[in-house]
Every structure is written in C-alpha cells, then in structure tokens.
C-alpha cells in the first residue's frame, strides 16, 4: 500500500473502523513508513486530547426552565403569517412562473382580436404553407405516413366556416 492510499484511512485505522484486510495492510505499511507513523501519532493525540476535555454542564436551573419553555412553545404554536403575506416558497414560485409562461405562449401579447372568418382564413393559409413545405420535404425525404396530411386537410375542411 502506498502513503497516498494509507493517509486518508489512518483515522479509521486508529478507530478500528476498517475491514480486517485493510487493517492488516495499513499495519504492514506502518511497519516501514515513518511519515505515516508520525501522522498517526498526531491523529491519536487529537483524539485523546478531545476525549480528555473537561465536561461542562449548564447551570442547575437550566434544564427545568428549558423543558418548561419547550412545552410552552409547543402548546402555543408558532404564529404564522397570513398566506398572502408569506414569502413564496421556491416550488410555488416555479409553478407560478410555469403557469405564466404557458399562458403567454397560448395567448401571445399584442395579438389582434380576429373574427371567426379571419381566424379560419389564417388557419387555412397556415395549413397551405405547411402542405407546401411538406411537399418540398417529401421530394427530398420520403415521408412514411402517407395518410397523415390528407387527414389534416379533411379535418380542416370540416372545421371551415360554411
């Protein structure tokens, strides 16, 4: 095992939190690498220094007060702001943005109000240009769904104003 492999697992070796085969290989490495032994000694020092720290305790009156306060807070639930005054969450903001985008796409701003006849004419012109485009595309690339365009035309004719 190389030092670069051993160094990151030295703490786990110290805590005996490695698999037995890893423990064995690290031990083998430590038998011939003074640098890693030094590093292990530093880690061991930190661990024992932390373990030897004084154990602080709060004031004697802290716990009864803390429990009383916790119970009081729970029985008087946190007052939340009314719905309209609350800051919107990310999920709500995303949903609202998506809804606005959909509406804008469906009803683009600035589009003039058209009569049903004008709308039908517009659709017919659009359809004709689509058919034309399809014909030129079909000349270069054969289209497998032969019946599809006829279906669209039939649908459009049925919808056209009488």
């Amino acid at each position, binding site marked *: 095992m190389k030092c670069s492999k051993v160094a990151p697992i030295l703490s786990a070796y110290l805590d005996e939190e490695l698999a037995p085969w890893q423990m064995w290989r690290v031990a083998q490495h430590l038998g011939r690498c003074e640098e890693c032994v030094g590093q292990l000694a530093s880690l061991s*020092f930190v661990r024992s220094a932390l373990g030897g720290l004084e154990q*602080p305790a*709060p004031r004697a009156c802290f716990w009864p007060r803390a*429990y009383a306060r916790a119970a009081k807070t*729970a029985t008087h639930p946190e007052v*939340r702001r009314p719905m309209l005054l609350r800051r919107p969450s990310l999920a709500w903001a995303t949903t609202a943005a998506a809804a606005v985008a959909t509406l804008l796409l469906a009803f683009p701003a600035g589009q003039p109000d058209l009569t049903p006849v004008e709308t039908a004419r517009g659709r017919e012109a659009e359809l004709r240009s689509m058919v034309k485009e399809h014909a030129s595309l079909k000349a270069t690339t054969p289209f497998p769904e032969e019946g599809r365009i006829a279906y669209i035309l039939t649908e459009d004719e049925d919808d056209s104003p009488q």
Partner: protein
Amino acid sequence: MVESRGAPPPDRDLELFQSLMTKHQDQLYRTAYRMTGNPDDAEDLVQEVLVEAFRSFHRFQRGTYFDRWVYRIMSHTFIDRLRRKPKVALESLDEEHGGRDGDPYRREPADPGAGPEELALRRELGDKVQEALLRIPEEYRLVVALSDIEGLSYEEISRAVGCPIGTVRSRLHRGRSLMAQKLMPYVNERDHRKK
C-alpha cells in the same frame, strides 16, 4: 387569518419526551458546548433543539434510538443558527463564568492528584483544543465531537448526522488532520518548554 402549526402535543407526550431526554441531556449539552465554544450559545442551542424536538416528537419512531434522532435535530439546528449568526464567539475554558442568575456554571471537579502546574498545562491544552475545534468547518466539527468526545461509532454518527459512513470517515479524518495541523506547533513548543 392566522394559522397554527398543528395541534399542541398532549401532556403525556411531554412526560415521555422529558423522560427520554433526561437520559441524554448531559451529552447533548456537552456536544452543544463543544460545537459553539461557550455556555451561553450552548444553552441557546440546546433550548432550540428541545423546542424543535418536542414540537416534532410525534414524528419520532418508537423503538428507534432517541439520542440519534435528537442529534440529527441538533445538527440541523446548529447549521441553521450558523446561517443566521455566522460568527461564533471563542471563549477561554479557564475563565470563570458568572451565570445569568448569579450561580456560576458547574465544572467537572479537577483531578485531585494533579499539581497546580499540571492543572495549568491541562487547562491550557484544553483551551487550545477547543480553539482548534472551533476553527474547523462545522460539518467536520460535529462528526469529530460525536466521535472523540461522545464516543459514538461511525455507524451511530452516520445515523445521527444523516450521511453515509464513508462521509463520516472522511469528515472525521479531515477534521482531525486540520486540528492536528493547528495543535502540533503548540505541542512541540510546550514539549520544548518542559525540557
């Protein structure tokens, strides 16, 4: 229109909560103290944890480890507090604290066998260790405190903090290595002084 956050927990829940909590309150406070570095912030942190834990006590699954569940709440609460208040005050451990109500904070009795010089050295080392602990990133600090102060296994820390064992292993190693870098110059100097 004001909305409440749900029905208040019944009194019997408070009794059960308190009986479970009492078993672990000392270790919870110790960890909070080591995480924050001073008794005032530690008490505030523990208080917040108690409120949050009691409020969500109905979500605690009976038969699972209560201390790990509370540690998990503490981990989230601590990170939230850091976001709200980024600066954590450093405080010397050998300073005498005057309690807010006049009673000083209780300390563990010193080893009666140790002489004054030895005690002074230990306290100095304690200060340095606490200072080094406060200077490592908080995600490492929690793992280091749970492992080296509370003696939890990697698996226990993984459950308490809510991250994989591999992450615990790397955080602990990095935390200890950073602390070693900060402490070793002091240790070498101290050894030199002794000679």
